[in-house]
């Protein structure tokens, strides 16, 4: 069994407007926890690691959260470096958050590497009573950008694994995308403990 360090690492980003539920989804998926109390921003979460096997082959997911930099739309180019996939999250109970998605698609398409897989997620599926965006609208927006779509609830766990499993499936089908994210021979290790997290060979 290969050690975790040597597994191919897939970098997947979460983006979308403040309060869309990005962190809730991430924390439910990685730690199976859910905090009912509304928190304005996510502090202290740089990235989460999660091992996921697809068709018997294990991958190490490196899941990055926006660290509050979505609030004033100040995500940097460097956030997008080497990302294989981008999960765009909006809140189905908030029309404005859905309306903002065009700009988030634009930002992701401008900054992510060519071929990176996008995935649209409508969150807070538990709030159907307050729903302001239909599943149909979400589906149509996803189709317009050539990506997949689902609705999830971090609170009830409904569909929580689906976006991650689906996006990894799409990424690993594209060998060119897989190798594009891996580090090449020219990288110099400056740290005492071997190379950084992205060093795993992704072949």
């Amino acid at each position, binding site marked *: 069994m290969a050690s*975790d360090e040597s597994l191919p690492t897939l970098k997947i980003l979460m983006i979308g407007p*403040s309060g869309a539920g990005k962190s809730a989804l991430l924390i439910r998926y*990685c*730690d199976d926890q859910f905090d009912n109390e509304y928190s*304005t*921003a996510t*502090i*202290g*979460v*740089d*990235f*989460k*690691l*999660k*091992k*996921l*096997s*697809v*068709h018997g082959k*294990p991958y*190490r997911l490196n899941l990055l959260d926006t*660290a*509050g*930099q979505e*609030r*004033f739309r*100040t995500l*940097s*180019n*460097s*956030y997008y*470096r080497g990302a294989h996939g981008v999960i765009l999250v909006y809140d189905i109970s908030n029309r404005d958050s859905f309306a903002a998605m065009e700009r988030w698609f634009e930002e992701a398409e*401008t*900054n992510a590497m060519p071929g990176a897989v996008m995935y649209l997620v409508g969150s807070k599926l538990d709030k159907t009573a307050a729903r302001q965006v239909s599943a149909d609208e979400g589906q149509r927006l996803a189709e317009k950008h050539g990506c997949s779509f689902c609705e999830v609830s971090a609170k009830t766990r409904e569909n929580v*694994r689906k976006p991650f*499993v689906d996006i990894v*499936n799409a990424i690993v089908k594209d060998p060119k995308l897989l190798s594009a994210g891996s*580090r*090449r*021979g*020219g*990288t*110099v*290790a*400056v*740290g*005492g403990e071997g190379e*950084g*997290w*992205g060093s795993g060979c992704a072949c």
Partner: protein
Amino acid sequence: MESLSDTKWDVVISGTGLQHSLLALALSRSDKKILHVDHNEYYGGAEAAFSLQEVDEWHPDSSTGTFQNVTLWKDDADTSSQSNKLSFSRAYTLTLSPQIIYTKSKLLGQLVSSKVYRQLEFQAVGNWWIYNGEGPPLLKRLPNGREDIFRDQGIDNRAKRSLMKFLKFVVDFENQPELWEADSECSLQDFLSSRFQLPPHLQSIITALTLSLDTPGRTIVKWALPRISRHLTSIGVFGPGFGAVIPKWGGGAEIAQVACRAGAVGGGVYVLGTGVTNAVDDRDKERWRIELSNGETVGTKHYIPHSGSANGSNSRMVSKTIAVVSSTLSSLFVNSTEGSPLAAVSVVVFPSGTLHLEEATQDCPVYVMVHSSETGECPAGQCVLYATTLYSATSKPILDAALSSLIKSTECSDARLLYTLYYDQQEDISSPCDLAFDDRILENVEEQWKEAMGSEGADGSSLFMQFEERRGINPDDDNDDDY
């Protein structure tokens, strides 16, 4: 949305240049409430990196005067070959800070101990070349260590002995003040000639290693010796054959962005396109009142202003040209040391007086950092040249001459200029005009950090840039999932 003025800030930082971003990193594990703003719409300040479109939209603030005389030229020849023409805007990351980082710089240690190095990729600065203006060959590779000097047949034995004597001295110059202190204000050239009997071409080589922007006459011993020593002792620290690195994707710009993200992960709030229009020190309340360009007014205990130009007479100005070339210029990237990583950067030095122009004399040296496409700054098949010299009325034609001489001397027949961006840059306290990262920036950061931290910084309960791994890297968080 909650407004910025509702928060009682501990620290407001204005500007996301490298120094200010490193401060945000240094404070990222404190419990301080930090507001980090930049009047630019982009990160990095004087160390920013741009796509082609961002260069088009770049209109440097003339009131601060850091950047002047921005002149853009694009090749409009219509060719069919891909590498022979400019690619799409985002295929380029042209950096305003192509500085190299010596492997002995404390910056690397701090990026490691603060754990942000994991988000950076470092690449080797490989060969150094010197242009002699007469040739052939026009470009000569600088010896990369003692073995290289022994093998070099272009240096006669007497000069070799003198050179070895100097190299042995310079790596330990601090312990031998009797050999140089009396000459500390002399020019390095005179010192090398009188004390070590080095012939002129070896004087040029040694002087090139200082990356001095000044004329040889103004490159003085006490300034030059530590730099030569740093160059020599840096070789081999992280592997054979190189002594300096650059971060992929735009050097200082990338470090600044990664440092700001660390600040955000720590709870710092980031606002771009918003500057500080006025700052009033309210001494009675021991707080600053900061007026922002978005109309809001915020209060803070500490205020780190956007740094102005360096104090008066010492402030220098450099001229720079960034050029995209339609060739890999592969002859500059030869692997000369066994086991050395593939270099992404080569340095080409044009000593004073080696470029011959009709309209000007080249008093100051010109340095060209050649970045291969491995840096992520341009598409495969091309490279980016960063040429720098001290500002003068004729610095633009001098830089042009350096670029065309460089291209000609590589004998790469496919090499053409596709794009050039010229500008003059005023030195800034937080962005010194130096082709290598200046560790004094870290001293400034530590000082500002101490002030903001107060007793926590002073009593040792928080250590500067020493952080644990963030949660998430812990293997316990891994759960095996079956599909």
